[in-house]
């Protein structure tokens, strides 16, 4: 991820990676700190970008601070490489980072910027996953006062989050949080892992790769470094459960209607005839599964 | 070597009140001395306003004496000067060894008669069931109809209330009983019952210091009398 920046004057009139060198240096410092204090929300000065805040500028800035000409980049939005947000971000990267190669294959990428999903294929130690974060602080739902929230994080005082889980149990007899599931990192800080489904939360735990989280509007960066524990908050007697894709009609797990995978996270939609369909949310994974089956056949 | 010990030995007891708002001092007791032995009832005599109740309150320590000593021999045999003992020790003695019956019952408004009597018993160390049984016996002994046991005394007549008051004090079997006109609001039959309870307490060895409003009660239960003289008010 070595950068060569002042050398190339790019068509847009900016140096390599759009951001100026001071901005990148500050971002890298914040990233280092975030890695050193796993789960801690590190503040940084979020820069103006040609994309509006709220459209992934937090992830974008992390990627721009890390990327170098020999990097291979994958950009995903809700599991798909082709959705609008991913396509626009990819265009910006390709316009500002000459030399960078894009890919859709998860295992080829050195850097992956994503929104709302973690790829199905486990990531390796030489890969970094960068998540776009709308709301970085899991405590914001229980404590409106920012300085109180900071104290609570410092003291690892998350009783109010547990009370929220308790209230969900009381009302619905189960934990009702579907995404942004509060997850305790390295036994201390609780993070908002961005709007990934519960299905993806276990992938954070003792992973080989580095996970970085960037919130552009809220100006926070946090990290789950490799081999770090990530435990979803739950009661001892109410185990954490991921989404259940069991078909109540057959009692079996639903399969992707396209590639047939029975292990991936499925999106539900309706076809032209109004029939319910389930397909892999990770489109690259689905394509590879399909190709793999084709090759095997 | 000392001779037979008194349960209570009051010597040179003085008490005055300073009323700041009026800028004056009222003398209530001066240099009063007397003793009470185990199993003895001493009645305080004196005109109304002489300070008979003040003597009882000084011993109970609702009043802080100005001077003098109030030597009390505790159940374990040590001697405590009630005039100077610290508040916590007084609290402890009140729970276990001292009893005070006034003309009025002070209790939480909603408590049942049984609970009013049982509560101090539990505090003095009786187990909850024992305390209940004992409280019921004490209420029966003062002649309170059992249908009233579970009702709050605030709904009772004056005489019934006073019987609860007496039952509460006698039930814990205090070693020193202070009685301030305990029978004033009672009918003759109840009064005789109370005299019977006083006799029982004396047989048990309790020392009793009492103020009675009628000479008949004194004739009936007092072993000795001590006269309290009225004092003049000083500026």
């Amino acid at each position, binding site marked *: 991820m070595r950068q060569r920046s002042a050398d190339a004057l790019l068509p847009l009139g900016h140096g390599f990676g759009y951001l100026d060198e001071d901005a990148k240096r500050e971002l890298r410092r914040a990233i280092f700190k975030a890695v050193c204090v796993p789960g801690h929300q590190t503040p940084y000065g979020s820069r103006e970008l040609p994309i509006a805040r709220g459209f992934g500028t937090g992830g974008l800035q992390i990627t721009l601070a890390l990327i170098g000409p020999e990097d291979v980049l994958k950009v995903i939005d809700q599991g798909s490489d082709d959705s609008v947000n991913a396509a626009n971000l990819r265009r910006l990267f390709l316009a500002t980072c000459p030399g960078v190669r894009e890919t859709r294959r998860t295992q080829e990428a050195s850097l992956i910027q994503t929104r709302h999903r973690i790829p199905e294929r486990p990531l390796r130690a030489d890969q970094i996953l960068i998540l776009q974060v709308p709301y970085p602080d899991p405590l914001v739902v229980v404590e409106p006062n920012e300085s109180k929230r900071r104290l609570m994080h410092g003291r690892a005082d998350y009783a109010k989050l547990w009370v929220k889980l*308790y209230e969900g149990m009381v009302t619905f007899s189960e934990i009702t949080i579907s995404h942004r599931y509060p997850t305790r990192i390295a036994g201390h800080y609780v993070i908002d892992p961005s709007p990934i489904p519960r299905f993806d939360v276990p992938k954070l735990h003792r992973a080989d790769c580095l996970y970085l989280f960037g919130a552009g509007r809220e100006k926070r960066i946090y990290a789950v470094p490799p081999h770090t524990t990530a435990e979803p908050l739950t009661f001892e007697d109410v185990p954490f459960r991921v989404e259940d894709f069991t078909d109540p009609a057959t009692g079996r797990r639903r399969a992707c209607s396209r590639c047939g995978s029975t292990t991936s996270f499925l999106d539900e939609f309706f076809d032209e005839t109004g029939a319910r369909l389930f397909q892999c949310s990770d489109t690259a994974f689905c394509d590879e599964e399909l190709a793999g089956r084709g090759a095997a056949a | 070597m000392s001779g037979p010990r008194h349960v209570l030995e009051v010597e040179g007891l003085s008490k005055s009140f300073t009323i700041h708002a009026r800028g004056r001092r009222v003398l209530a007791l001066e240099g009063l001395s007397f003793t009470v032995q185990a199993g003895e009832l001493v009645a305080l005599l004196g005109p109304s306003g002489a300070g008979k109740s003040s003597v009882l*309150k000084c011993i109970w320590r*609702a009043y802080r004496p100005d001077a003098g000593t109030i030597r009390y021999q505790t159940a374990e045999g040590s001697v405590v000067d009630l005039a100077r003992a610290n508040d916590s020790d007084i*609290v402890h003695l009140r729970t276990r060894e001292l009893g005070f019956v006034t003309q009025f019952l002070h209790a939480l408004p909603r408590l049942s008669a049984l609970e009013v009597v049982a509560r101090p018993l539990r505090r003095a160390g009786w187990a909850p069931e024992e305390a209940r049984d004992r409280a019921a016996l004490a209420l029966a002994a003062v002649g309170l109809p059992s249908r009233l046991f579970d009702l709050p005394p605030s709904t009772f007549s004056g005489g019934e209330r006073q019987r609860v008051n007496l039952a509460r004090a006698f039930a814990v079997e205090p070693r020193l009983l202070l009685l301030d006109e305990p029978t004033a609001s009672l009918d003759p039959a109840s009064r005789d019952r109370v005299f019977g309870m006083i006799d029982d307490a004396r047989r048990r060895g309790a020392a009793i210091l009492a103020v009675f409003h009628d000479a008949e009660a004194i004739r009936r239960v007092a072993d000795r009398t001590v006269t309290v003289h009225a004092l003049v008010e000083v500026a």
Partner: protein
Amino acid sequence: MSVLLEVEDLARIHGRGCDRCLEVTGPEHGTNRCRFCGSVVALRGASFALERGEVLGVIGESGSGKSTLVRLLCFDEPASSGRALFHEADRVVDLFALDAARRRAFRDTRLGVVYQNPMLGLALSISAGGNIAERLIAAERVRYAFLRERARALLERTGVPVARMDEPPARFSGGMQQRVQIAKALATEPPLLLLDEITTGLDLSVQARILDLVLELQEQLAVSMLVVTHDLGVVRHLASRTLVMRHGAIVEAGLTDQILEDPSHPYTQELVSAAL
């Protein structure tokens, strides 16, 4: 009898303070405010001991320093000077020497606080059971079944209908909210309860029931209590001993009936004669 809490020369000064603050304030000067620097001496020279299992009353009008005393003891406010020693079975804890984390742990496990205003002690929009759960979780007990069972038992004990445990206290009457507050305070079985004007503003009959509950709990759990109130009736029923406060100072201390029947300080006499 053994001492649970010893408070020594406790003081709280709001403002920058000066050398003469203590000289020119207090009961004998009739004011809390230092005329040289304008600081307010909310509490000064407060010393007393609380025995195990004892109920100690603290009485005084608004501004007398009685609520400041409570806030210092539960770390809601920092003390300006003085000490508070808490006697555990095997050690003595110097409360104001504890660091922030230990203070919090102390408050979570050793102290229960019940406020006049239920909004200070409860999250009114969270269920009664959830409020109790929060205190239990703070003490690191996170089994759902345990939280339910404990909340149910505590509400039962404090006279809150268990059927209502999943309702938010916002829907409860004032007296019921105080019961939930008391249940929450008792959740971790603390040896010390601080009760700050808990019956103020309630109907008389509700007041009596709350006092009755407090007495019952005191008897059953042998918990020590500091009962702060401006109501003589409350100390008469609850406290064996009482402190009288004025202008930030304890002006008189004694057995409760003695404070009521033989008050010696001019202010106490005024207070008692005003109430009768």
